[in-house]
């Protein structure tokens, strides 16, 4: 299992947990207000639990073991090349990683990629969503076309970007002054990684936002127009506030994905010239360096980063956040 797979399986675990919390919180006050829950409701709830149980059990079985195992590994000195020197070393791995400049450099690169790419994706995705929402003719065709980049395997797309930007083989590299090899310069390479990410995931953003647009009632728009609101005012005062939950879901998904960015970088630079992201540096230590201890420590730290970001989204954005109590009642 690669670190990325592991990371994504963690995310999977986390989502049902979050949704579960929401459900319990809604159920709690209801039960207090109505102490006598009818027989039918009770059996229905029991049935619901039983129906959920198999999925929950499978999820726990396939995700708990790797998570616990990697947490245990992170407290050990365990290099596959020195199996005899395996030992418990407490938090030493965390000390080594958190005081290392390569790690913080990768952290900074990841944050730059996340912030810049998600911000641009949000703007472009919104524009695309509006276009797709308003289109009258060929709706299905346009939506399908817009989704093509998202449908292409990331590694394949990354290879085509890599060839395009490599002098000698690429049509894009030929547009640059002779002798420039953008993928070998840190800033330019990061810009290309961001570009590849945006190209790839803007359609996904657009799709999520379009679902949000669909829930904005037409009557409200018409009423606002009647009151003399301009197009821009209707967008910022009517559409955006009503879409807030959809925007937050889209942002949360994309931010968590972007923090774990791996495939594009692996193909484009493989972390050369200071372009390592957290996933790439973890992979290099875990698989290239065969250092299970340090690599697992990095995986755990990435997991914590992702949890913190998710928590900020859910707590920080209040009731409109996905998974909060209000969502079901809207």
């Amino acid at each position, binding site marked *: 299992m690669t670190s990325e797979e592991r990371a994504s399986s963690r995310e999977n675990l986390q989502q049902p947990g979050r949704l579960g919390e929401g459900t319990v919180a809604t159920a709690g006050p209801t039960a207090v207000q109505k102490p006598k829950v009818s027989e039918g409701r009770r059996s229905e709830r029991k049935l619901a639990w039983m129906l959920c149980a198999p999925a929950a059990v499978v999820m726990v079985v396939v995700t708990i073991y790797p998570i616990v195992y990697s947490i245990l590994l992170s407290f050990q000195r365990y290099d*596959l090349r020195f199996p005899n020197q395996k030992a418990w070393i407490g938090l030493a791995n965390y000390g*080594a990683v958190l005081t290392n400049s390569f790690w913080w450099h990768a952290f900074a690169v990841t944050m730059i990629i996340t912030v810049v790419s998600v911000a641009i994706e949000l703007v472009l995705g919104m524009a695309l969503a509006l276009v797709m929402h308003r289109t009258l003719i060929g709706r299905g065709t346009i939506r399908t076309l817009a989704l093509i980049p998202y449908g292409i395997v990331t590694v394949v797309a990354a290879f085509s970007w890599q060839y395009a930007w490599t002098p000698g083989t690429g049509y894009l590299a030929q547009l640059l002054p002779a*002798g420039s090899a953008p993928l070998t310069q840190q800033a330019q390479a990061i810009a290309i990684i961001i570009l590849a990410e945006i190209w790839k995931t803007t359609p996904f953003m657009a799709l999520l936002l379009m679902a949000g647009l669909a829930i904005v009632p037409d009557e409200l728009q018409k009423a606002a127009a009647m009151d003399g609101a301009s197009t821009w005012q209707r967008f910022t005062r009517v559409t955006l506030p009503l879409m807030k939950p959809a925007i937050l879901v889209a942002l949360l998904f994309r931010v968590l994905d972007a923090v774990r960015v791996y495939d594009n970088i692996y193909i484009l630079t493989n972390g050369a010239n200071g372009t*390592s992201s957290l996933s790439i540096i973890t992979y290099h*230590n875990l698989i*290239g360096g065969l250092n299970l201890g340090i690599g697992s420590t990095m995986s755990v730290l990435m997991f914590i980063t992702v949890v913190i970001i998710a928590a900020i989204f859910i707590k920080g954005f209040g009731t409109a956040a996905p998974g909060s109590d209000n969502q079901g009642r809207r």
Partner: protein
Amino acid sequence: MHTSLAVGATAIMAGTLLSACGSSSSGTPTLNLYAYPEQNRPAIVQRCNQQAHGQYTIKLNILPRTADQQREQLVRRLAAGDHGMDILGLDVTWTAELAKAGWIREWTGANKQQAQNDALPAPLSTATIDGKLYAATNNTNVQLLWYRSDLVPKAPKTYNEMIAEATRLKQAGKPHYVGVTGAQYEGLVVWFNSVLAAAGGSILNKAGTKVELGAPAVTALETMHKFATSAAADPSLSNTMEDQARLAVEGGTAAMEINWPYVYASMATDKPDMLKHFKWAAIPGITGAGRATIGGENYAVSRYSDHPDQAFKAALCLRSPANQKFAAIKDGVPPTIESLYHDNTGLDASKPVDAKTNPSMATAYPMRDTILAEIKNAVARPVTATYQNVSTVTSATLSPPASINPTPTEQTLRAQIADALQSKGVLP
């Protein structure tokens, strides 16, 4: 009903798996060879299979193109105890790592004797760990100094002479760059290792257990820094790998390059008019002769091989003198067997030599004497289980070469490598 179905399905699956694995154990064992892509390796495998007369069949499995991906696939499978690999084509720098981890078998007895027979000592040292032999050398490689004789009348012998020559060319308004592998990758380690050896030092001690560096390293770093800030340095030095250095000379911006011998064949194809002025010499030193860093490939036998006896025999066939000569002439990889450098017969020894139809080492390798002289004086890269870590932190610390500050850089490097040796540090 469901249970019986499941049992049936399992039985069928198990049967398929068994038959897939079992075919080799009955008759001729199949030996899986894993090696990097080389054009004429399949022909060599075929020759060995014919000569084996049913003792074994070698199946060639081609590893990915880049060195990192090749190593990753090998170590990942070895760490998992994979029985599906028998003979491994290893870069010289991985041999120690795999040997120390206990993943490849020691060569002993008659096999060892045959592998050592007539083998050049420098390549052999990359396969010898703690006095034991862990691989048979298949090919080797050294960088040479390549220069345009129409611009540079006499090959410089030291870095100072080379920089002076570049300065002179610059003042004359002529191409003056010298291509070296200054990008942050293995090539930078090769460059540093060579300059350090010329300064009389080494990265690690002989046993590969302690950092050496010290005063010679400061001298080496001074030399690299002086070069990187002189007229000889291409502005894109910190991004130059072998191919960029080659293209700079072919494209006319560089007058010299320190590079592997493949650039000669490349020049012959790309710029045939420039070939008559394209000359070679030993790589420059600091006060005296330079010392090249050994590259190349070794064949090792996996510890998890089910047919080790046949695998040793097959590896010996793959790197036999006849096959090394074939690979040298056809694929341009320098042999590790000394007598081949004095061999004047054609590829088909029974027919007269002809550069086109029946090439010999002399026609395919005009620079073979220089290569042999360099190999005899060459140094290996550190022989340690954690070479991957040592190399990664070294190239990260020395990049870009223009910002080397000799004494502090030596101290940083010492600390980083000491951590890397313990596999304590973090890889970038």
